[in-house]
Every structure is written in C-alpha cells, then in structure tokens.
C-alpha cells in the first residue's frame, strides 16, 4: 500500500505540493487528474526519488517502508516503478545490456538468482512479442532514435520485465496514438491483481477508457481537492477542470 500524508515539496525554492494526502491500497488502480502545473510530475518524481525535489514536510510510505529515505534504486527494488513521460535516450548503452542489468539488479534485491544471457534473452523475447516489439530493438541503444510510441513500448517492456508492486504512469499517454495507448492500457490491465497497484497520472480522460480506475483523484495547486469513482473522470471531461476546482473550493 502506498500512503502519502501531508506532502509538501519545493522545487528550486518554489512550493509545488501543498500538503498532498492520498492512499493507494494494494491491488487497486488509482488515477490522478489535474490541469497543467498542478504538481502531477512533481508527485511522480518525488515518489521515484529524483534529485532536486525538496520534501519540506509530510511522509510517503510503501508497504510500511519510508520511501523518502530510500535511494532511487532501493525504491525500485522495493517494487516502485515510474513510467516516464519522456524517457531519456542513452546512446551507447545497449538496450539488451540495460534491461538485463536492471532485471538482475532487481532480482538481486529480492534475493533471487541472476539470469545469464541465454535465460534473459528467452524471457525478454517473450515479453517483446507480447508488446509487438522487434528483436532489433534489443540491439539499439536505450531509446536511441526510437519514435515516441517505441519509447513507450520500451517503458512497458521494462515494467513487464521488472514486475513492480506499484507502477506510477506519469502522463504515459501524452503524444500517443490510439494503438499505443491501448498497448499501455493492456500491459497495465494484464498486470492487475491483488499484489499490483498503479497510479495513473494523466491530463486527459481517454486513457481511463482503457484502464478503468478504482478511484480518481483531482490534483489542483499541489493538493488533492476531490476524489471519487471512475465517473469523476467523465465529469471532468464534460465540465473541464475549472468547474470541478470551483465546486471543490
């Protein structure tokens, strides 16, 4: 279970999150919707442990562990996965090398044995086939020269391989065509189960047509102003953020 309480976060001296509280129980998919500048990306980065985000007050725990005290790689080993809005390109770092290094690091963290090159290839090829990815993408640099859709596929491949306990999808839908969107949704849906939860951060409702959330939270000016069931997303789509923000005020 992810539990965030009264989280205040500064970026470069400017307060972005103003006392955000929410809980994502194990097995549930929650959506966070909010206008631009409401703090959506800040929340995802602060949970994943990126530098430059100063936690002024509040806590974030995952399965009882203090996330904010952990290094990014420790959070990953604990089961936290962030799907990036714009994944970086790493020319010269082979995608296969990267995926195997990551998977083995996570397995080490869980006390499991590492995969050798052959075992790894067998597993990764199976996952890639399910995502409609060509073998050739293993040989290229990580995301090097990938289209927007290919980068998101690669993110989904990492998520499927690393099998996190909670996936945070930071506007993974931005810039995606309908096929890629469905692919993201299908990958998340396939992972749904009692031991997996997801936090889907999005500006638009359309992703939520494909990943139906258990709960929807509206983020505005750095705090959750209202929460509800899946129909809250539809209401937002119909009335716009302005109406909902005003009603909550």
């Amino acid at each position: 279970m992810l539990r965030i309480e009264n989280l205040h976060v500064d970026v470069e001296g400017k307060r972005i999150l103003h006392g955000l509280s929410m809980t994502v129980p194990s097995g549930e998919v929650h959506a966070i919707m909010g206008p631009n500048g409401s703090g959506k990306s800040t929340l995802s980065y602060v949970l994943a442990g990126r530098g430059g985000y100063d936690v002024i007050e509040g806590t974030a725990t995952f399965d009882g562990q203090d996330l904010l005290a952990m290094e990014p790689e420790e959070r990953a080993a604990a089961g936290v996965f962030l799907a990036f809005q714009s994944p970086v390109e790493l020319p010269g770092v082979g995608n296969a090398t990267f995926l195997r290094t990551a998977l083995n690091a996570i397995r080490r963290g869980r006390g499991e044995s590492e995969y050798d090159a052959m075992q790894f290839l067998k597993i990764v090829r199976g996952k890639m086939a399910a995502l409609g990815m060509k073998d050739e993408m293993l040989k290229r640099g990580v995301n090097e020269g990938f289209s927007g859709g290919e980068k998101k596929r690669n993110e989904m491949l990492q998520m499927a391989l690393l099998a996190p306990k909670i996936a945070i999808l930071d506007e993974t839908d931005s810039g995606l065509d309908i096929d890629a969107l469905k692919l993201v949704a299908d990958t998340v849906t396939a992972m749904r189960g009692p031991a997996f939860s997801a936090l889907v951060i999005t500006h638009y409702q359309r992703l939520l047509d494909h990943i139906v959330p258990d709960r929807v939270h509206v983020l505005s000016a750095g705090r959750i102003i209202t929460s509800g069931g899946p129909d809250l997303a539809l209401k937002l789509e119909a009335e716009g953020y302005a109406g909902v923000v005003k009603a909550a005020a």
Partner: protein
Amino acid sequence: MTAMTTGAAGFAARYAGLRDQLPGARIAAVAALRAAGATHFGATGFPTRRAEAWKYTDLASIAQSAFAEPLIAIDAAVVLPPETGATRAVFVDGRLRPDLSSHAGSVGADPAAATSGIADPALPMVALNAMLFEDGVLLDLPAGTDGGTFDLVSATDAQAVAFHPRHVIRLGAGATLLLIERNTSAPGVGVLHNPVFEIDLGAGARLTHLRLNTEAPEAFHLATIAVRCAAGATYDSFALNLGAKITRNEMHVALNGIGAAAHLNGAQLLDGARVCDTSTYLDHAAPGCASRQTYKTVLAGRSRGVFQGKILVRQIAQKTDGYQMNQSLLLSEEAEMDCKPQLEIYADDVKCSHGATIGALDEEALFFLRSRGIPKDEARILLVEAFVQDAIAQMPEEPARDAVRAVLARSWKAA
C-alpha cells in the same frame, strides 16, 4: 650497484659513456643520428611548459626522477599479457626477448633501419630516443601481403628503468596489418617508456594500430608515433590509455599521396592525479586525403587531460576532408581538461571541422538507470562505457574493437 640516471644532464652523460657500445656504433648514419639527437636534446633537455608544444604537460617529475640503466640485464620474472595466438614480439625493458617472441626482426640487430628520418629528429623526446635506443621491432611486410595480427608487447622487470625503443614498421604497397601494442610495466615502479615509432605505408597499404596502455600508475609513457602515408594508404589508430602517471601520445601523420587517410581515435580513463596528453599533428600534403579524429576522455579525481590537435592543409591539398572531435566527461570538480584544436589551411577547396565538448555525467540518465534498480556505481559505469563506445565504434574491424573492449572490461572490473 646499478648506476642511476637523472635529468637531461644524466642522460647526456650516459650517452657519452655508452655511445661506442650502443647498437650501430660503427655505422656512420646511425652514429650521426645519435650525435644529432644528443645535440638537440642537449639544447632543449626535457621540454618545459614554456615550449608551446608542451604548454599543458609538465615533465618536471620525469626530469627529477632517477632511472636505472637497462644495459645491466636482470633476468627477473615478468608478467606478460595473455597469448592471443598472433605473431608476437615481446620486449622487456625495451629489449627483444627472442625466447618469448615468435618474430625475430629487430632494430637492435639492424640499427640502420632507424635512419629513415620519418620521425622529426629535432623533437626533444625523439632526440632522447635517438641518443639511447637499443632495440625495437622491425617489421617489413612485402607488397600485397596480409600480415594478419601482430602483438607487440612491452613489459618491464622490477627496476625503474628508462628505455627508448625505436620501432620501425614498413608496409609495402597494398599490404595490411593489425598491430596490437600492449604496454605494461612492473607494479609499483616508475619506469620511463619513451618509444618512437617510424611507420612507412606504401601505396594502398593499410595499418590498424591499437595501443593498449595499461602501465603501472607510477610509470611515465612518452610516445612519439610518426607515420608516412603514400597514395591511397590508410593509417587507422586507436589508443586506450588506462595506466601511467604521465602519458603523452604524440602523433605526426603525413598524408603524402593522393587519397591517403588517417583515422586517429582514442579514449582515456583518468583518475588520481594522472595526466594524459594526446597531441596530434596531421599534415595534409596531397589532394583528396581524409583525416578523422575522435578522442574521448573521462576524468575523475584530480586528473588532467590534454588534447592538442593540429591539422595543416598545404596549398596542394585540395579536396581535403578533415574532421576532429574531442569529448570529455568530468566526474570530479577538481579534474581538468585542456583542449586546443588548431587548423592551418592554405588550400581553398577543403572541408575541415573540429569540435570539443566538456561535460558532466547526465543526471537525468543516471536517475533513469537508478529508477530501474541499477545501483549508482553500476549506472555510472554503464554511462562512462557508453561515452567511450563511440570512439571504439570508429574502428572498422571487429577484432580491433573486441581487443579494446576486452582490456576496458578488465580494467573496470579491477577498479
């Protein structure tokens, strides 16, 4: 007791005492070469930073060190790089060891081979080498032959020797060779390795020259590589510098025939207070020649990197295609990189470009890798290797790339 040598005066005295015993003492041209070396080195000594070509690299620590004389042979056990099955010439303290080698040709046995004049005798370190060289590999490939792979190994025994090998490599028209130079030295000992290469490539010949420098952290490595390319010849080089306290790789490549090409690439991984200086001089002296240079430097600790790259395009050298790229990755606030590109162009129809970047590890890339569970140190290694890969990828032959990667991987594991 072993006599020790210190400073320019010490080397001059040593030459004065030994000149009648050095190889080629009775060959007029060799004696003249040595005498000219003594005159030049006597005038300059170890160059100081007041000399423009040495502005960024201080040799004071070498000039003040005491070195043993390799003429007094000590048959201590030496650690050699693993056999690769290639033809091999092993030099210990700068002398060919026939018992460890499958190649017999040596400059020690044929010192007149050192009088080609390909290396400028007025350069201070070439002059010192001319005074005191005893041996070196002599490699003659007849026209049209494929020499395969040749391992040139340099190792030292437990003494802090100064040695000055003179290597002569001549490829006839259309001949090809992969030369892998593996430079090692005894741990904990401050040797001075001052090799001079004179490389003569006939028309259409192709030499790939790898320099894998893994000498001890106390060693000094000052190499001069002088290359002459006839029409259509290609000199392809890659230097991987992972050792030595001070390294200077000074390369002089003359593209003398139409359509000749030089590819000078390299990578250095520096830590502690190490210094690595790459100074290249490309002389485009014929039309339609191409030169490509890609150097990558990774600097940690208080290390210092130097890149000086001069491209001279003579008036006759129309349609020259020259490219030079120097990229550096600073891993510490105290590390320093000095970079000086220099283009001197007298022809009007040429394409010449140079670029230099100096930066830190990309924080976003580092965070991305860590967010996937990869520990910080492992993530840094992946990114540093990726940075260096680009230079390695410039080499066309897979075996050459593999040889560099193998040494790189071993060094990272040991670090």
